[in-house]
């Protein structure tokens, strides 16, 4: 199977032109940045707060923007045109992910600048961020594929925001309920634990467990995305 960067770029380029006129999506990008400003009011920002904002960025930008632009393609019947073109599944999904990925990176960098987060120059951290980006992109694509309209996608985002974007709040909550301990395996907490471990100066072997869990999330979500996408191709809508 061939992979044409030209087609991927054409879809990405289209999305850039499109989003520059899409106030609804553009306005959501502001949210984590505003939050970042709010939190810098206190002098010493704890690591938990940094990661609260980072994870919130992943959910409210990566997942939401991705979900919204895919849902919009469905709502406006334009996804069918892409599917009927010679672009492959991978080309379409990659092309459609470019914009959300770009916005995510920009917001992450902006938020880190604002909160003064020192990005530890460790391969494990880069790797974990990269895999997180992919897994949230896949989650957003799924969100868009499983909902019919942008409004529906925004509604479904609410519980996702609660689960993936609440940071230490949810963590403190589940500490009282041992039955909910499995929630620690959510990718947002794994990323935070990994960062804490790296910051504490632990060796690579101590973070490998977190990397594996994040990788598992990434692989499962990517497979699910392709499966659901292929189902959509033949749903006749």
């Amino acid at each position, binding site marked *: 199977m*061939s992979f*044409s960067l*030209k*087609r991927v*770029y*054409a*879809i990405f*380029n*289209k999305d850039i*032109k*499109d989003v520059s*006129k*899409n106030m609804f999506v553009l306005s959501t990008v502001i949210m984590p940045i505003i939050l970042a400003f709010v939190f810098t009011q206190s002098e010493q920002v704890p690591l938990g707060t940094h990661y609260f904002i980072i994870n919130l960025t992943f959910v409210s930008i990566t997942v939401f923007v991705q979900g919204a632009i895919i849902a919009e393609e469905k709502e*406006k*019947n*334009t996804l*069918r*045109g*892409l*599917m*009927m*073109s*010679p*672009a*492959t599944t991978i080309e379409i999904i990659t092309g459609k992910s470019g914009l959300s990925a770009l916005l995510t990176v920009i917001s992450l960098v902006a938020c880190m600048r604002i909160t003064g987060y020192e990005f530890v120059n460790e391969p494990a951290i880069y790797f974990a961020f990269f895999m997180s980006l992919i897994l949230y992109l896949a989650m957003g694509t799924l969100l868009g594929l499983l909902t019919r309209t942008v409004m529906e996608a925004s509604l479904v985002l609410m519980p996702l925001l609660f689960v993936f974007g609440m940071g230490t709040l949810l963590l403190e909550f589940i500490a009282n309920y041992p039955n909910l301990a499995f929630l620690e395996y959510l990718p947002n907490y794994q990323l935070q634990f990994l960062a804490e471990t790296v910051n504490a100066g632990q060796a690579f072997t101590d973070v490998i467990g977190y990397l594996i869990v994040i990788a598992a999330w990434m692989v499962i979500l990517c497979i699910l995305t392709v499966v659901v996408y292929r189902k959509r*191709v*033949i*749903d*006749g*809508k």
Partner: protein
Amino acid sequence: MDNILSVKALKQVFSKETAIDNMNFEVKRGEIFGFLGPSGAGKTTTIKILTGQLHPTSGSALLFDVPSTKMNHPKYLKKIGVMTDNSGLYSRLSVYDNLHLYCELYSVENKRKRIDEVLEMVNLIDVKSKIVSKLSKGMLQRVTLSRALLHEPELLFLDEPTSALDPANSRHIHHGLQELNRKGTTIFLTTHDMQEAELLCDRVAFLNNGKVQLLDEPSKLRRKYSDDTLTVELVGGERRILKNGPEGAQKMYEYMSNNQVITMYSNEPTLGDIFVDVTGRSLL
């Protein structure tokens, strides 16, 4: 002539409703094939199955000798063009940007020139840089049509391509489609416009309740269902129906010798009449 498309015992059931029921027909390479039927007859559903957007409940459809369920491969998608009611455009982008994206997706060469060509064909060259959300319904329909033509497909599926158009634009597009067909594109066209079907189609299929009820060339159908009569309008406004044969000929001779004839016309049925005759249903 070989068949570019052949449908065998096709059936599509939605939950409990049977939309297509044991459908059989073939489309020859190079023809304009009309698929006629009233609303809900199953025209769009058939196009969706043929283009691989829907897998049928049972039966098969072969395009280029490949099952429709395998159409979803770049190799085959390149050869077909589709315009249905689920072909949307990007409303925030200009007409040009919409078409340009598709040029890239289909690896069309000489993009600018090709975009001008297809816009010319749908009579929309002057809205090239307009934003899609500012276009009228008929304009949208024409841009969607032009997009389906960009990559010069071998087989073109058009689902009611002129339903929102005024007569002048319909005519412009009819000429364009005939021109395209002359250059070798096979066209599968659904419509409930009988005049469009008569004008464009080499053969038509009448669809009713998910079945093909009749399939032939329009002229043959008209002859087959003709009652062999002529109507003559005489001076004074009187109308006479004359049957083919010596008796009718005698009458005609009389009228004409006495300079009584104002006009006369054949009573060949229209495709619409035949449709009502065969299905007991009106087309609209």
